């Protein structure tokens, strides 16, 4: 990965999107992700955080606005074309292929390398070298693993394609605190490699701890934003405000 530069790698401009015509979930969201940074997207339930990631990943086409990756507007790009541009989504909840083995799951993460089987095989082995605890599980069906192990498979499947932008949705949901902490450490390791991460999280404290900059969405619109220091200390107030307490 290249060194960090100051030009935004991902720019969201006035994005309006939703699942039903005339009822947008996102009502003009603006956001910038700097390369090599973790950008947090926070907010109460229904704020549109996951919808934003789905729109960026191509699963939901905005009715207006621009989603610019580098110099290219990818708002109309179908989801399967995103990996070619090295932008990848880790969706909320379990997303393994449960009846395929761990090795097969990771191998499919390198689908864009399918024209070069030797390279793909090397990339799979590189993932087992990077996540050695998965090596012993390589022939087990992914669906038979624990939640933490499945998350590790999902991350390995994500990383094998060498994405420059990672869209991470609620990475710690359903995980024990110890496993969740490992996941956040892995996100920091990915950032240290120069990858850009857009992190949607309900765990405000954990997200702020690793984010360089954070946006708070409310009812599909930008609410507040700032770097980590702007949020530290006010987390309790922020969460109470979301809860209406």
């Amino acid at each position, binding site marked *: 990965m290249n060194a960090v530069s100051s030009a935004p790698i991902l720019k969201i401009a006035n994005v309006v999107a939703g699942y039903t015509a005339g009822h947008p979930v996102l009502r003009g969201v603006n956001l910038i992700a700097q390369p090599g940074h973790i950008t947090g997207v926070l907010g109460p339930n229904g704020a549109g955080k996951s919808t934003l990631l789905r729109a960026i990943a191509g699963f939901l086409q905005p009715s207006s606005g621009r989603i610019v990756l580098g110099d290219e507007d990818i708002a109309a790009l179908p989801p399967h074309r995103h990996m070619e541009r090295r932008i*990848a989504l880790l969706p909320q909840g379990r*997303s393994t*292929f*449960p009846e395929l083995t761990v090795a*097969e799951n990771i191998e499919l993460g390198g689908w864009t390398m399918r024209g070069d089987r030797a390279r793909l095989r090397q990339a799979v082995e590189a993932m087992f070298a990077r996540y050695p605890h998965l090596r012993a599980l390589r022939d087990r069906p992914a669906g038979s693993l624990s939640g933490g192990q499945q998350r590790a498979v999902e991350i390995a499947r994500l990383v094998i394609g060498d994405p420059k932008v990672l869209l991470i949705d609620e990475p710690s949901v359903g995980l024990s605190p110890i496993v969740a902490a490992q996941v956040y450490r892995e996100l920091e390791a990915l950032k240290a490699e120069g990858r850009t991460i857009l992190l949607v999280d309900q765990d405000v404290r954990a997200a702020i701890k690793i984010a360089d900059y954070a946006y708070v969405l409310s009812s599909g619109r930008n609410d507040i934003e700032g770097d980590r220091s702007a949020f530290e200390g006010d987390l309790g107030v922020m969460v109470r405000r979301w809860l209406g307490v």
Partner: protein
Amino acid sequence: MLDRLAFIITDGILLGLIYAIAGLGLSLVLGIMGIVNVAHSAFIMLGSFFAFELFRRLGLDPIISFFLAMPVFFLLGTIVYRALLTRIERVSQSQGLVAMFGLMVLIENLSTIAWTTDTRVITAAYTNASLVLGSLYIAQVKLIAGALALVLTLLFWAFLRFTLIGRAIRAMGQNRDAALSVGIDVRRLSAVVFGLGIACAGAAGVALAMVFPFSPNTQIQWLAWAFLVVILGGLGSVANTLIAGLIIGLLQSLSTAFLPFDYVYLVLYVLLAVILVLRREGLTLVVKRAI
């Protein structure tokens, strides 16, 4: 008595292998794409007439037609997918079902215009020959058709298990969004899956035509058989489909041997009813399970 039992079991196994491939394509399309392709049997019937015409016009052996049917029907399947399925993939399953039913009726009616409702047979050089193993007589044509069906089943199994595209097809059936996320073009792959399903139907039609008389109307019977295989074997694996086919073949063979002919179909339809009662979710459960 033992000789007779050995004959019945052998006959049942060979029939079962053919029934398995009749259900295999339906199982694949239903499991991966969630499409209840009621037109599947119409393509089986077209496969039978494909072999019939090649035999009648060119004298081509049905064994060759079996292997020719695969690419031809694969192409036909991808065309049907592009022309029809892409238009109905976003509609409700019941609307999709009506569309596929319409396709089945269309194919049957066009086939009736082309070939009338007369019953046809393919009489190859080995159709009336038997293989004698001690006191056991096995119809050569069933042996050949069963062997072809087994080869096709093994090819399908190996394709889905050992090739990257096969694994991508299984992945698509298990988690469509995740498949899209890793870069798999699920629409393109769906065309391949539907093409494979129809290729399987076409090849099954050739195998069935080697053993049974056929007409455009017989497709309804094959539809029941194919659904019976899918419901009995579920969509868990190619192996389960094979086992389901073998059970149905053996049941038919045993019923034919020990019951009056009229009861044979009754036994199989009662089996279908019993399975649906025991597994009340029926096809809904089947669709939820992934290949």
